[in-house]
């Protein structure tokens, strides 16, 4: 009997400890277990605040855009998925460096849309979200993505970056902390990075070594929970 009492007491003590840890952790996370989603909003806002013209409205896509400092590529995210004609999140980049490197546009799949010397690649988000109505802005549209399509956002521990997945291996990444970004790790020396999947472009005739303005290199990425090294076209910038 005593032994049973002891066991019950131990079990209760263990449960209390677990409950205390859980409560402590949840409290530390301010009640939101999606710490990546929550953290990414804050830092995305920081990026919008630093880049000139970032968060500019893009009426054609019923959303907002963030342009690279060299003006060659834009991240566009929709605020109303019913009105966005092609994609809800996308990259629009200058086709010229790729054409110069041998791109035969006719060999690109239908996923790649052409628009006045630019190429657009992106994806429709899986879950429908209500359109941003009251006080719509770039950040609330981003929050909408995080709320309704949280899987689109991820965290890249090797780089200490957040990422917005645009489908088919294309991404937009930004530093979790731009203040410490350049000093903590040698790989984290860029604050924002536009990422293109090179494979369809190479398949359409691009010689990756000849693409001007893009870096063709391997990067560690998470693929279904695994860390794998893959080739990407990168356009990285320090924006502070």
């Amino acid at each position, binding site marked *: 009997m005593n032994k049973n009492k002891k066991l019950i007491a131990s079990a209760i003590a263990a449960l209390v400890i677990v409950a205390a840890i859980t409560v402590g952790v949840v409290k530390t996370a301010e009640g939101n277990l999606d*710490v990546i989603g929550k953290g990414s909003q804050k830092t995305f806002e920081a990026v919008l605040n630093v880049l000139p013209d970032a968060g500019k409205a893009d009426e054609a896509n019923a959303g907002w855009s963030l342009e690279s400092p060299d003006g060659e590529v834009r991240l566009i995210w929709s605020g109303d998925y019913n009105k966005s004609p092609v994609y809800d999140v996308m990259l629009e980049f200058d086709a010229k460096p790729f054409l110069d490197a041998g791109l035969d546009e006719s060999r690109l799949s239908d996923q790649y849309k052409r628009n006045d010397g630019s190429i657009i690649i992106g994806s429709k988000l899986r879950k429908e979200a209500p359109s941003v109505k009251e006080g719509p802005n770039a950040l609330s549209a981003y929050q909408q993505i995080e709320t309704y399509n949280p899987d689109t956002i991820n965290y890249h521990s090797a780089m200490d970056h957040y990422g917005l997945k645009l489908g088919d291996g294309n991404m937009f990444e930004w530093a979790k902390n731009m203040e410490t970004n350049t000093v903590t790790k040698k790989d984290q020396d860029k604050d924002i990075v536009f990422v293109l999947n090179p494979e369809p472009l190479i398949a359409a005739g691009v010689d990756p070594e000849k693409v001007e303005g893009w870096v063709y290199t391997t990067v560690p990425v998470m693929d279904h*929970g695994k860390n794998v090294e893959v080739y990407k076209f990168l356009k990285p910038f320090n924006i502070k």
Partner: protein
Amino acid sequence: MASEMLNIRGMTCAACAQRIEKTVRKLSGVNLANVNLASEKLFVEYDSDQVELSAVKAAVTKIGYEVAEKSENAKVTIPIGGMTCAACARRVEKAIGKLEGIEETSVNFATEKATVTYDPQTVRLSVIRGAIEKAGYEALEVDKADAVDEDRARKQKEIKTLWTKFIVSAIFSIPLFYIAMAPMITFVRLPFPAGIEPMRYPLIYALLELFLVIPVLAVGYRFYTVGFKALIQRSPNMDSLIAIGTSAAVIYSVYNTFQIASGHFMAVDALYYESAGVIITLILLGKSLEAVSKGRTSEAIKKLMGLTPKTAIIFVDGVEKEIPIDEVELGDVIIVKPGEKIPVDGTVISGNTSIDESMLTGESMPVDKKEGDPVYAASINTTGAFRFKAEKIGSETALAQIIKLVEDAQGSKAPIAQMADIVSGYFVPVVCAIALVSGVAWYFGTGGDLKFALTIFISVLVIACPCALGLATPTAIMVGTGKGAENGILIKGGEALETAHKITTIVFDKTGTITEGKPTVTDVLTIEGISKDMLLQLTASAEKNSEHPLGQAIVLGAKAAGLELFATEQFEALTGRGIQANIKGEDILAGNRKLMDESGISLAGMEEVSDRLAEEGKTPMYVAINGTLAGIVAVADVVKESSRAAIESLHKMGMEVAMITGDNAKTAAAIAKQVGIDRVLSEVLPKDKSNEVKKLQSEGKKVAMVGDGINDAPALAQADIGIAIGSGTDVAMESADIVLMRSDLMDVPTAIHLSKQTIRNIKQNLFWAFGYNVIGIPIAAGLLHLLFNGPLLNPIFAAAAMSLSSVSVLTNALRLKRFKPVTGKR
């Protein structure tokens, strides 16, 4: 000095055994304290005037272990007929409960059984049955299968509990391991739930791991309660290592979970919940396998214990009555029918039969028994029914003594174990220090990489395995001595076992050892004027008071010739020379040449005859009447069938074989030649036999003496190993280091071979136990990584290696079960 064997619960490794030994030895009045980790027993020898056994038990309990009380009470389940309702059950309970000596009664109406715990010294089972009958119910036959073998039941329960814990632990550890490891496996795409992706939902991922590890830690709570308690008392053990290692992993992971919650997501790469979970699971698996293997090491003794029948048929007032074995009393007349086991020791009073005594002696041929012959408990009556009188019951039977002897041997320590004991004593603190130093060194060496340093710290703690060290020697001794007992070879302790394998010279006593010990009269030679019958009649009359086998042979020879023996007026045994007696006024001297020389009796005319007889291997005994030689009575003993083969086997083992005898040199030489003896020590008086052994020892030889254990007691004691042969039921068991239950000399090489095999097994075990640690600890400490940028040891693999070390040691010890006795063809 009193001694006691106590059952200890709660030990997990050699450090625990060391700790108990140290604590008990510190008590004033304790002379000896030996713990056998494998059998979980403490043998304590103490001065009862200075210290009480309760103080010893209290000291053991105080340091966190349990002393299992030996139950003095018996427990029995009696099926009851005639109960119709629950009230009947209560009535029966009341009826039994009223009896004196009843500890507990429980009657189950549904199963119609009464379970009674009672003191057999106060109340007999028959009285309990009588009380049930008196209450109006039927006490049916006691279900023998219900007899409780507490020890076996406890071990089974322990194994079951460990397996259950392991299964529960595995149920949670497998998914924990999967979600922790799947993201790291790059060569295959394993399915992984998107909702817990560590790079997307690190906090959910961390909390899930935490929730999965909690049940594992809960089932392994004993590692923490025992481990930290031992640590606090500054006697860390194996549990302490596991407790520190896994606690460090869990605490660091909880810290990192908070880090993730506060926005430091990279901490998701520094979660070690799965290490803690898998370590506990693997150790539980190892402990489960260990418990199963440990049970098998004591199978031999369990087999012996299970030999005794549960009931006996006694003959009382002209009727046969079956009673429980515990109720048999001295003097009871017991009936044994063909095919039945003999319940207690005794002497046949009527009937002839053959009895299979192989379970006691290893001898496969049944032994014929007639009136006056002894019979032993647990042997099997093969042919005829007979009656015998109970002379030894309970703990006095030969079987009980053998069990005690084997139990004592299994609880003893071999000198080779001392090294392991010393190492075990320092092992855990040293490992803790190595873990700490390695962790700190790597922390600073890697520029503050806490994750790396922690991996090293945990790995070192977890791979170190003191349990393998603790099991190496006792398990081999248990299996070795058990195997010996199965073959009729009782080895009285670890020290005997170890010394036996070093033996270089074996000295055999002649009579009864190399020879059958049943000499017969072969020649009677007289001088003129004395008839052969007269000489034999006088000599036999003189020898009838002698206990010497030669004297008895002459008495038997005279009786066989139909000669009447005269009354002896005076008799004196002259040790090592012969006898002197007075019969009908005639002074008779019968003995060897030395006796005749001392008495100044001329041997003229008989010396040549004597020499010839001796060369034929016969023992000539001179007989003088009134100071004049009257003739020679020659006696010869038949060499045992197995003697030559046994000596040949010993030669093949590289041993020198000597024979020691009181016989004259020529007789001794003749026997020696027949069996292939290397060295003959003849005409040695019984009191000088030990000196002869001493002389051999002074030549630097390790000497074993083989004798019948009574006449040869001093020599057996002087020898490095005393081997008593064919006397498993008498005082020989006291005087020898090894007792051979049969008279078969082949058991001598078998015993030596078993000793060699066991010591070899112990050395292998120690090699494995030390090897794991000597190789594992430096790898875990990152030495390969430091020197050659080689691999580090994941704590999970360290835990697997630790479990494997104990299991491999036990498995190796169990190989001894395949030991085969030496045969003549070897």
